[in-house]
């Protein structure tokens, strides 16, 4: 009862309540999303709204529930309670394929690329353009691969090159470009810049900015504050399975954000 008053003085709490007033309509949303493993609540009552043309950073310390939230949003796990909304309408993802066909694509850290196959073949893995129902239309595949990579200004070797020969950042770019070819409106990136060098990180951040400019909603999981402030519009902070903040990055300082992540006095 005295609850809102107690939170009101804090600037962070104020923006926490004003979550859904983002830049556009929410493509992907969640209401009261929870996931329990036995008696452990990995995620408890999380609301979120991802707007088209925006980048939301998902922050939290180890064990805060980031991975669980991603798993729920990408259809890997089913929620114990709460619901996921696509364009405001509730929907259930039976498996990752269901999430993908609803337009929610997740690029996990393991990228899911086949090393011995070419860039083009990886881009169209499982969705090859066909002729006569069973033959791969290789010319069209390579043409469309070049076109999507060109559109994203991704600098890669020829699309017939084996993915094995690519650098970490280039591989990340292939995996991200693949989500666009599937027409995904929401792209979830799980620590895309982990283990990348400076230049490679830059390359991936540019790509994320381009996804945003194309009107996709991006959810970026990252531990790297520089990256977050560089490319994200909002930050959603989890701690011990609960959402502790959902703020516009313009309204907070780096120290505020770190304080929210680790808890204690902010």
């Amino acid at each position, binding site marked *: 009862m005295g609850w809102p008053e107690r939170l009101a003085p804090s600037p962070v709490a104020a923006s926490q309540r004003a979550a859904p007033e983002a830049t556009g309509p929410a493509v992907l949303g969640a209401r009261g999303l929870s996931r329990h493993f036995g008696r452990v609540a990995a995620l408890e009552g999380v609301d979120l709204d991802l707007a088209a043309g925006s980048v939301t950073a998902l922050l939290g310390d180890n064990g805060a529930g980031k991975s669980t939230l991603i798993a729920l949003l990408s259809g890997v796990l089913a929620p114990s309670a709460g619901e996921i909304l696509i364009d405001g309408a509730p929907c259930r993802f039976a498996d990752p394929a269901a999430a993908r066909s609803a337009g929610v694509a997740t690029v996990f850290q393991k990228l*899911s*690329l*086949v090393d011995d196959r070419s860039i083009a*073949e990886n881009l169209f*893995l499982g969705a*090859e353009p066909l002729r006569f129902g*069973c033959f791969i239309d290789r010319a069209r595949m390579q043409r469309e691969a070049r076109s999507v990579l060109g559109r994203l200004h991704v600098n890669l070797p020829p699309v017939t090159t084996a993915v094995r020969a690519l650098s970490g950042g280039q591989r990340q770019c292939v995996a991200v470009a693949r989500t666009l070819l599937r027409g995904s409106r929401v792209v979830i990136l799980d620590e895309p810049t982990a283990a990348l060098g400076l230049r490679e990180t830059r390359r991936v951040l540019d790509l994320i900015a381009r996804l945003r400019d194309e009107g996709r909603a991006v959810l970026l999981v990252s531990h790297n504050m520089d990256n977050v402030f560089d490319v994200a519009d909002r930050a959603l902070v989890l701690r011990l399975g609960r959402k502790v903040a959902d703020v516009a990055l313009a309204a907070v300082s780096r120290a505020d954000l770190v304080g929210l992540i680790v808890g204690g006095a902010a």
Partner: protein
Amino acid sequence: MNERVSRLLDFLFSREGVMVVVVAALFAGFAASAPHFLESQTQFEILRLTAFTLIIGLPLTALVIAGEVDLSIGSTYGLASVVCAMAIVQWGWNPWAAGLLAAMLGLAVGLVNGWAVVRLKVPSFIQTIGMLSLLRGLALVLTMGLSIDIPASIESRFFGFAGGMLGPVPVQVLWALLAFVLGGVVLRHTVFGAHLYATGGNARAALEMGIRPGRVKLWTFAVLGLSCGLAGALTTGWLRIGAPSTGNGGELSIIAAVIIGGAALSGGVGTALGTLLGAFVVSMLQTGLILSGVQGNWVQVGMGALIVLAAGIEPHFRPDGPLADRLRAFGRTQAEAGDA
């Protein structure tokens, strides 16, 4: 022009390029040393041997690409041959129907193997080594260890289909050519081929991208079984005999051809052309060594040594292997020298 040279170099140092050189060298070596090697009868014998190796070896290549292996191919082949002969001689079946029965039997064996590997998650090595023994045993039990001769009184165009000549060329060569074209097209140009490489290359990625690796493997096992059945029927029709020892040890030379051809048992790598060249190497060695007066048992020793050798040098010829690295480095220094 530089483009063309570098492409030629790429091919020469690719697995297939090296293989072409090896095949040519073997041919030249035997032509110079083994008596009767250049005679057309010997050459057609080699082609015939290559043909049977290919009919089973190409679908086996597909299975190896998908990351599995089948050791029961020789036994399936033998049992199919025996059952085909039994159906013709003892049950009085029309030879065409008997051939179909043999093919269906092979298909059934393949489906059982695939089902056990995919659904029961039995490692394919274990599953098919069991079937190797089981099916060979069945062939021996059915025939009581004796060969079944098809008397000359039984006439059918089936025998010409399986073992006749087209001009000077044995028909098996034609069937093998058909298998090669089919295998090459499937691996290179169809969705199924792409899914095979994805399944063997990274099954988790394939699954995440909506491919069903289990189904891909099941189909491949089925086609391989069918091919073994067909090869059995062709053998019975050609030799007019169903011997329970048919294909005994055949798994060895066929797997040798596939491995020598560059398919990796770790999955995701392999081509129809490679297996064709591998089959040539194996059948040329088998024939050439015997013509050179090498004792048959030593041929087997040589075949084993060849498998070990091929598997040993395989990593060096992979696109990420040390040889490729060195060549790339060489190419770079050349390019820099050209720029300067």
